[in-house]
């Protein structure tokens, strides 16, 4: 594993966790630098969402250390972690279906970014004109792609230092997936660090600078995306080539 530089945004060392007696993550080390896109790839059930839950404080870590922006965050509440700017857009979007689109976005700044709420709302409406058109509509009436946009918009309202995207392309049509990866590039170009957790290996390796391959609760491989994309083992396992 590469030694993390002192200006690392997120640093994980020796992380283990699980549910009940079942260990899901069995010693994970990784790092995300400022302004970087890093992707964690792996098939269903290897622990990707579990990793995200620990990072967001929804699931406690068993052992190991998580540092974010210089602070230890392992063991802190989800609210405290949001306060420090680590924002997760969860798998399955988890938007508030019974609230309007505007209210969903407003709640994005419930814990962080409240002073700039009006300005950020305008910026997000400029990025997603379709959300603006339907601002008063219940979020549950949106299509899957629009709900994903809303979930990302809600995350951006908290002025994240690091945005975790958990399977943003899941269940979307190829055209919308294309749009989604375009958006991820654009957000990163504006300076936002992104941790992209995906099953979509090809497109994720294209946008990310570095990649980690998660298998059975440990990273089986990690490195620059270009090197990983050229790895014959990965091609065989994930691309069927």
């Amino acid at each position, binding site marked *: 594993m590469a030694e993390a530089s002192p200006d690392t945004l997120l640093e994980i060392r020796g992380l283990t966790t699980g549910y009940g007696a079942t260990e899901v993550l069995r010693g994970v080390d990784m790092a995300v630098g400022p302004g970087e896109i890093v992707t964690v790839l792996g098939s269903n059930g290897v622990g990707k969402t579990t990793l995200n839950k620990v990072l*967001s404080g*929804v699931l406690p870590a068993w052992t190991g250390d998580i540092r974010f922006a210089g602070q230890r965050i392992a063991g802190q*509440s*989800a*609210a405290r*972690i*949001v*306060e420090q700017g680590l*924002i*997760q857009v*969860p798998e399955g*979007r*988890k*938007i*508030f*279906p*019974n*609230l309007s689109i505007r*209210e969903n976005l*407003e*709640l*994005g700044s*419930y*814990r*962080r970014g409240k002073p700039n709420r009006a300005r950020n709302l305008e910026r997000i409406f400029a990025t997603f004109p379709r959300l603006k058109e339907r601002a008063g509509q219940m979020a549950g009436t949106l299509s899957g792609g629009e709900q994903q946009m809303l979930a990302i918009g*809600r995350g951006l309202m*908290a002025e994240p230092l690091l945005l975790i995207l958990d399977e943003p392309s899941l269940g979307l049509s190829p055209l919308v997936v294309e749009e989604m990866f375009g958006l991820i590039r654009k957000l990163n170009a504006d300076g936002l660090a992104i941790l992209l957790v995906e099953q979509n290996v090809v497109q994720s390796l294209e946008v990310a600078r570095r990649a980690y391959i998660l298998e059975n609760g440990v990273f089986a491989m990690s490195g620059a995306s270009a090197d990983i994309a050229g790895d014959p083992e990965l091609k065989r396992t994930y691309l069927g080539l």
Partner: protein
Amino acid sequence: MYSPQIILEAMLNGLMTGAVYALIALGLTLIYGVLHIINFAHGALLTCAMFAVWVAWAWLGIDPYAVIPLLVPLMFALGYGLQRFVIGPASHGDDGNILLVTLGLSIVLENVLLATFQSDTRTLDTDYSFQVVALGPLLLSFPRLIGLAVAVVVTGLLWLVLNRTDTGKAIRAVAREKLGANLVGIDVPHIYAVTFGLGCACLAVAACLLMPTFYVNPRIGGAFVLVAFTVVVLGGMGSIPGALLGGLFIGVVESLCGLFLGDSLGQLGIFLIFIAVLLVRPTGLFGAKA
């Protein structure tokens, strides 16, 4: 047959009683809608609030209406504390446990009241307890008129809190999407406790409105909560407008049944409606489809 004036008067009186039912149901439906639990301690908490009004009047000489601004924050704090430090931790996240905890809580509260106040029925008679207001040819009870006005205002305020404040939006968000709420930094146990507190605050208002014309004993809350359950089922579990309209409607039904069938059978109509709603439209008038 009765004259139309008497029937109209009975309907208006029913509306005014119904307003208080609505307030009690409002607390019940709010707690159900967000925490997804049926609060069996609701009746005992109402009794506590009614005794607080009685104590304020009998021992401290404070007018029941003047107690509202004192009792509302007090009951809010009690509800907040109960949910945060008793019901929440004792339930270990299991809804079945919550049911038992609130039931146990109601037994404890009732018996504490019995030990303190004995089972005597107490009333307080203010100068205006029997005052009437003439509205054209109709004579309306003054305290009940106040009750109707305050209940409508409180419902409006609650609606504003839920729709216009961040805390209110967080309450509605937690009601449907706990994980999503957690990930935007909403402290879910805190919001649960605030919701429980708001439900208890509604009871505080209801108690202040009831006491000028009603009596209190340690078991009185149960009778009101039984009616409030009917209101909640009629209006739709978890629906705020449903609780208000359901409460008013049930009040009118009770009043008219009392007029035509005799006072002791006044509540018959309520429970006939309860059964009918369960048979025909189990989601209630404003309830979401299952």
